[in-house]
C-alpha cells in the first residue's frame, strides 16, 4: 500500500520529496488542485471515500499521515 501511495504522490508532483516533507499543507507545497487530484486518485485506488471533513492539514501534511488516513477509512468501511 505504501508503495502505491508513493507512486501516486510522485506521479502527481514529481518535484516534491514526499519521503521527507512533513509540511505539505501548512507549508503550501500542495495546493488545492493537487489535493483534489490526489483525493480522487486515492479514492479510486484504495476504494475509500475521503470527504471534506477529512481534509485537515494533519491528515495530509506528510505521506505517513495520508497512509494513516487511508487505513482508518478502509477500516470504517
Amino acid at each position, binding site marked *: 500500500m505504501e508503495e502505491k501511495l508513493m507512486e501516486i504522490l510522485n506521479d502527481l508532483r514529481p518535484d516534491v520529496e514526499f519521503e521527507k516533507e512533513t509540511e505539505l499543507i501548512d507549508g*503550501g507545497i500542495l*495546493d*488545492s*488542485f493537487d*489535493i*483534489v*487530484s490526489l*483525493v*480522487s*486518485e486515492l*479514492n*479510486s485506488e484504495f476504494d475509500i471515500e*475521503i*470527504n*471534506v*471533513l477529512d*481534509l485537515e492539514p494533519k491528515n495530509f501534511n506528510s505521506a505517513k499521515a495520508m497512509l494513516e488516513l487511508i487505513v482508518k477509512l478502509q477500516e470504517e468501511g
Partner: protein
Amino acid sequence: MAFVSVEFLIFICIVCLAYFIMPAKGKWVVLLITSYVFYAFSSWKLLIFLLITTATTFLTGMQLGKISKNTKAYIATNKETLGREEKKLDREKQIQKKRRVVLLMVLLNLGILIFLKYFNFLAGNVNKLLGMAGGETQIPFLSLFLPLGISFYTLQAIGYVVDIYREKYEPDTNLAQFALFMSFFPQIIQGPIARYDHLAHQLYEPHAFDYDRVAKGAQLILWGFMKKLVLADRVAILVNQIFDNYMQYEGLVLFIGAIGYSLQIYGDFSGGMDIARGVSQILGIDLAINFDHPYFSRSLSEFWRRWHITLGGWMKDYVFYPLSLSKSFNKLGKKCRKIFGNYIGKKLPTFLAMFITFMLVGVWHGSSWKYIAYGFWNGGIISASILLESFYTKCSTVCKIDVESYGWKFIQMVRTFILATLGRFFSRALTCQIALYMFLHTFTSFNPWVLTDGTLMELGLKGVDYVLIFVMILILLVVGILQERGIHLRDSIAQQNILFRWFLYLGALFFVLLTGIYGPGYSATEFIYQQF
C-alpha cells in the same frame, strides 16, 4: 461610518476607553454594543437583516447540535442491541436531518442576499429576454438597498453552520455572544471573513490593556491610513479620469488606468484591512490576514491565495472541495476518464469545480455581467495554466531556464501582475461592454510616446503626485520584501532607540497628514468594498 474619517477615530477612542475600563466579565458586552451602534450609524434601517441572519444561524447551530447529541445518546444507550447496519442507517438518518436544517438556513440567508443584491440584475436580463421573445410584460425594478456587509456576514454565517454540520466544533450556546461574532465592527464592512473557531473565543475572552500591543495596533492603523490616503485615493484621481472618459484614450494609457486601479484597490482594500486589524489588535483580538503581498505572486493561482485570502479560503472549504469531492463529481470524473483518457479526464472535474468557484468569486463582487466576465478571466487563465503546466516545464528545460533564479521569479511576478491587471478592466469599468472595449483597445495601439509627451500630466495628477505614488510603491516594495523574509517590522522598529522610533512615527504621521488626499476639495473616496 467610513473607516478613514475623524468620526471613526473618535469612535475607536471611545470603544477602547470603554473596553479597558470595563471589568473583565463585561468586556465582550462593550464590543457587542459598540458593534451594533456602529452598524446602526451606517445602516440602521437595514439592521433587521443582520438580526435575521444572526438569529437563524444561531438557531440552526443549536438544532444541529441537538440532533448530533440525540443521535450519539441513542447509539450510546443502545450500543449492545444495535447492529452495524442499523448504526449506519441511523447515522444516515441523522445526516439527512442535519442536511435539511442546513439547507433551510442556507436557502433563507443566501436567498436574502441574492434577492437584495441580484434581483434587479436578474430582472433586467429576464426583461431583455422577454423583449426579444416579443413579450410585453416587464418585471419592474425594485429600489433595493444592501445592508452593510451582507456579502461578508452571510458567508461567515454559512461557514459556521457548515462547520457545525461537519462537527468541527460545538455550536455557540449564547445568542448575545454569537451576535457579537456576527457583527464585530472592524470586520463588518469588508471582512476578513472569520472562522468561528479562530475568532469567537477571542471576542468573548477579556483582554487587558497592554501598552506595547496598543502601540503596535495604532501603528498598523497609521499604515492603513497611509496606504489609503496617500496611495489609493491619489491614484484614484487618475483612474477615474481614464475610466470615466475611456473613449478619449487608447493603448498604453488604458493600461496605465488598469495598473492605477490595481494600485488603488490594493491600497484601499489592504489599507482598510490594516485599519481593521489594527483596531482589533488594540482590543487584543487577532483578525485573520486578508493580504499577503499579492503582487509578489508568481502565478495567478498563487495570486488568489494571497489576495482576499479569507474569501478564497471560504470558497475553497465550502465550494471547491465539497464540489470536487462530491459523489456526482466523482462519477463525472470516471466518465471523463473513459472519454478523454487519463490525463485530461482526471483534471476535467477539477476544472469544472474550479471554474464554478471562480465564477462565484466573480459574481460575489457584484451584480453585473462584467463580474461574470471577471470570473471567466480568472478561471480561464488558471485552468489554462494547469493544463499547460507540463508544457511549461518542458519549455523551461529546453530553454535551460533556471526556475529558481531571481530573474525567472521576477519575470513570473511581472507576468502575473499583468494578468491580474488586465482583469481589473472588468472590476472597475462600468459595464461589461466598456470593459471589453478598454481591454481590446489596450492592444490595438502601441503608443509609448504617451509616457513622455505630457499626456500623463493631463490625467488629473501633477508631477509631485507621481513622485508620491512612486515613493509609496517603493515603500510598499521594501516593506513587502522585508516581510517576505520573515521580518516583523513593527517588532524590529520597537527595538530601535527612541529617537529613531519617534522620528519614524512622527514622520509617517505628517507624511499622511500633509500628502494624504482628504479635506475640502477632495472627497475621501468611499471604500470600494463597502457596498457589499
